[in-house]
């Protein structure tokens, strides 16, 4: 079992982050009164579609190589997410703090002032938010649907934002200052202090079909959008 990272250049060429959590239920159809009982189990997995913009130059070869190394459905592909719409840090402090409403002077000074522009007696101000990825405050057992994170980015993640732990992807259902209820239930147990990735979370996926990556080897397709269907993978060793 090998884990193949999607090259950054290809990741940037993605059009969207078309991932959805999907499970199957069973039912015997509606009764005479029109009501129906549905049986379901926690069998939800992430299904995804990668839509890559046209590729040029050595990106074409990189894409082809990913397919060869994936060996159909044998090996796993690690996909990063950009998590647009929630607070994330991509390495650019100016962008990060500007998005949070800090002025260029505050960013340059490294602290913010009171609303009237005054600062503390020791010539400092309020510390700017931490850019590091949040961590787990307590151990969390597998199957859990809530956890507590410490760190600005996690405490302010909005509903619908996604995060990853151990390359498993989760989505925020509710966030009360870092107490997060999420879906799907935690795939594997996690320990206090473990990093919870909100900035570029990742997920390990398997191709939906053996020949899914073949689209990257078809002549002439590089100048059009290429689409690959993937499904969440659970193996980690």
């Amino acid at each position, binding site marked *: *079992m090998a884990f193949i990272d999607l090259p950054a250049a290809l990741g940037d060429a993605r059009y969207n982050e078309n991932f959805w959590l999907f499970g199957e*239920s069973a039912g015997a159809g509606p009764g005479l009164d029109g*009501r*129906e*009982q*549905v*049986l*379901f*189990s*926690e*069998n*939800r*997995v992430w299904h995804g579609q990668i839509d890559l913009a046209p590729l040029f130059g050595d990106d074409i070869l990189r894409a082809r190589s990913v397919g060869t190394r994936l060996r159909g459905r044998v090996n796993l592909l690690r996909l990063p997410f950009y998590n647009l719409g929630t607070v994330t840090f991509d390495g650019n402090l100016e962008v990060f703090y500007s998005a949070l409403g800090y002025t260029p002077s505050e960013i340059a000074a490294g602290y913010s002032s009171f609303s009237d522009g005054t600062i503390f007696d020791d010539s400092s101000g309020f510390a700017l938010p931490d850019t590091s990825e949040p961590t787990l405050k307590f151990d969390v057992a*597998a*199957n859990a*649907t809530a956890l507590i994170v410490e760190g600005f980015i996690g405490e302010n993640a909005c509903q619908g934002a996604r995060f990853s732990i151990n390359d498993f992807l989760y989505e925020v259902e509710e966030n009360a200052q870092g107490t997060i209820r999420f879906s*799907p*239930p*935690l*795939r594997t147990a996690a320990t206090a202090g473990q990093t919870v990735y909100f900035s570029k979370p990742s997920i390990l996926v398997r191709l939906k079909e*053996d020949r899914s990556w073949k689209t990257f080897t078809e002549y002439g397709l590089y100048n059009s959008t290429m689409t690959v269907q993937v499904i969440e993978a*659970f*193996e980690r060793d």
Partner: protein
Amino acid sequence: MIEFLKSQPAPQRAQVMDLLAREAVQMSVMLHLDFASEALRLSNRNIPFTDLKWGHTWGAGGGLLVGLPELSGGDDQLAPFREYRLGIPNDWIDAETWMADLVEMVGDVGGYRGRDAGLYGQLFDSESGQPVGHPFAFDIGIMDRMSVSFPRGGAIISLTTESFMARKGVPVYGMQTYHDQKRRHPTDEGLQFVTEAGKLITWTDW
């Protein structure tokens, strides 16, 4: 009290009934195969859970279970059997001899034939995702035959289990013939002309 509730822990009976009455019921199906080497406990959940009755962990390797049998019963089902379809563990595929290992496992009937098999259900609280009450049995039996087929790039194991009633020596196809009767009671000639009669004999019940 209905038999189903009797098997549930008293403090959770009301919650079990409440869950069963809902329009959307979270329930998992679990399969226990008591292989001699290691008991296999699977479920149709993708995250393992621990049941409240035995404390067993179910679900590890749930992807192994690729096909469930249709459960049937009734007066015309004298020797019901179930056929389960199992995939093979992924870590086997990495071994060069996995095909030979698989055939060896199927050939070693002592490892499974006559050993316990059970299909259970378990209710879950939809909010917490935690099990509620005890597992309840859909079907209990013993493992019998196992075979393996090798479609391209993989393998499927077919495992037949039989209910305990199937082991009581009931006649083949559920018909009691003259020879069946002679085997059990050598001096009994009661069914001597059943075959010639060519029709189903209903024993008198006065």
